[in-house]
């Protein structure tokens, strides 16, 4: 059993793009991670408002320092409160949760295409590190609204080729991430971002791949059925017609679930 709750201490908190924050949390939970793409469920504040935890993907892990990093956008009350926490403050974390991106079948020198949009990008970073560690080649397409929104570009660039797309064309290729697909060849793809993007990537991609989904959550551990999605076919092993994004996902094989 690796899932747990822990008060993790904030060791870094900074705004890396407008309303986009990078926070580093220190604690043993950091080293319990099984695979990139897993997430944690963060209690941003004690008390009853906000009441629910917030699901946030693990962006990076430092096993030696027992730290994990998140990158999150300030959306509403919860992420706002999180962004107001200072170094030294603690937040209670439940995790690591879910099934992440499978990388077992990736072989040395395979080319992996990573496609991320907005705050779907963070979990791809730890994935990219893991893949390059295995000797695989990584091409990353990062989609943003405009040049001002860009984050993690340099970090990804250290691991392989990076293609930026912006909706307004203020940097990189104008339009959506799929506009950058032409001429790329790869053995597997991994993607995370808004639903519309996932659908487009799934239909444009020419290989097998993996997608990471988001849904509003209650428990985060598979008990409340808040976060389900339908399997395109009843699951062959269990006969189940639906998947729980928090515990069966958030990562699924492309085509496995309806998005």
């Amino acid at each position: 059993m690796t899932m747990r709750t822990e008060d993790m201490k904030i060791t870094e908190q900074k705004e890396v793009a407008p309303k986009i924050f990078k926070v580093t949390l220190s604690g043993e939970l950091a080293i319990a991670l099984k695979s990139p793409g897993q997430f944690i469920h963060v209690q941003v504040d004690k008390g009853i408002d906000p009441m629910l935890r917030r699901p946030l993907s693990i962006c990076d892990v430092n096993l030696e320092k027992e730290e994990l990093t998140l990158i999150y956008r300030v959306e509403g009350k919860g992420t706002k409160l999180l962004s107001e926490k200072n170094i030294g403050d603690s937040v209670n974390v439940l995790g690591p949760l879910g099934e992440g991106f499978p990388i077992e079948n990736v072989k040395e020198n395979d080319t992996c295409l990573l496609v991320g949009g907005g705050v779907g990008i963070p979990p791809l970073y730890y994935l990219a590190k893991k893949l390059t560690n295995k000797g695989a080649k990584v091409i990353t397409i990062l989609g943003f609204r405009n040049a001002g929104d860009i984050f993690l570009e340099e970090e990804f660039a250290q691991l392989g080729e990076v293609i930026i797309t912006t909706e307004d064309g203020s940097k990189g290729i104008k339009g959506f991430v799929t506009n950058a697909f032409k001429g790329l060849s790869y053995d597997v793809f991994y993607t995370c971002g808004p639903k519309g993007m996932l659908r487009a990537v799934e239909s444009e991609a020419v290989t097998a791949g993996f997608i990471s989904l988001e849904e509003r959550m209650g428990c985060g551990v598979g008990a409340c059925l808040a976060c389900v999605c339908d399997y395109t076919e009843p699951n062959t092993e269990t006969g189940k017609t639906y998947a729980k994004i928090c515990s069966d996902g958030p990562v699924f094989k492309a085509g496995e679930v309806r998005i």
Partner: protein
Amino acid sequence: MSRLEVKLPGLLMKNPVMPASGCFGFGQEYAKFYDLNRLGAICVKAVTVEQRAGNPTPRVAETPGGMLNAIGLQNPGLEHVLEHELPWLEKFDTPIVVNIAGNVPEDYKEVARQISKVKNVNAIELNISCPNVKEGGIAFGTSASTAANLTEQVKAVSNVPVYVKLSPNVTDIVEIAKAVEGAGADGLSMINTLLGMRIDLKTGQPILANRTGGLSGAGIKPVAIRMIHDVSQVVNIPIIGMGGIFEVDDILEFMMAGASAVAVGTANFVDPFACPNLIDGLETRMDELGIDTLSSIVGRSSALCNSNR
């Protein structure tokens, strides 16, 4: 008898705390966090005859001091529960309560008949209060005569005690409680969720795909306390109290109001260890308040009320 023990029809509980239906699946998820034998009982998700897909997502929304859910009774169906979920629970020696639901009385009866034959099922919780389904659910819970009628039918086919789970979305819960007691209910569970809605300011549309949902969490506690108090003044069957239990004091407040045991729902989502933590905190707080055994405060407010008159 231990300080924390409470005894209800079919349920000899080592402590008064069980997870609330729908907030604990069939136990497997939280068993990864702690030994379920620590619980006073386990109440599982609503079971219907057929597998149900539930409502579209989003199914939850947060509210100040609470949350809305519109799961829509999604469950794997009676057969699967009989073959997989209940057998898995056999390894625990804590009582099991199975929450049952349906569209028509025949559905309820079918589930009750089969479920109550299972050897590790100690009680049935008759869900006539789910606000998130079109048919059945709350429709049975808002009329005293319909509620009583269904209770009678389910009682007739059940081998284990039947607790009727009441809806708070009614003008007069006392009338409904009396009617189901008259129809043979062995106990009551109260309260289910309050009907609520949240609007997404960006779209002007409800956040939940189902539009409305059931409000649970800390904020509904005073409504639950009021209803349990009022009902406990007039019925002679025990009440399992629930609705916003987050702290040890809440458990005592429910019991003083008239509950004989309690269920913890939403708090599990905030802290997976909510139930065992609450149980662990009970004795210290009882010492502070000079409460010897829980059985001594059960319905205390009810007793005192009567002597005050």
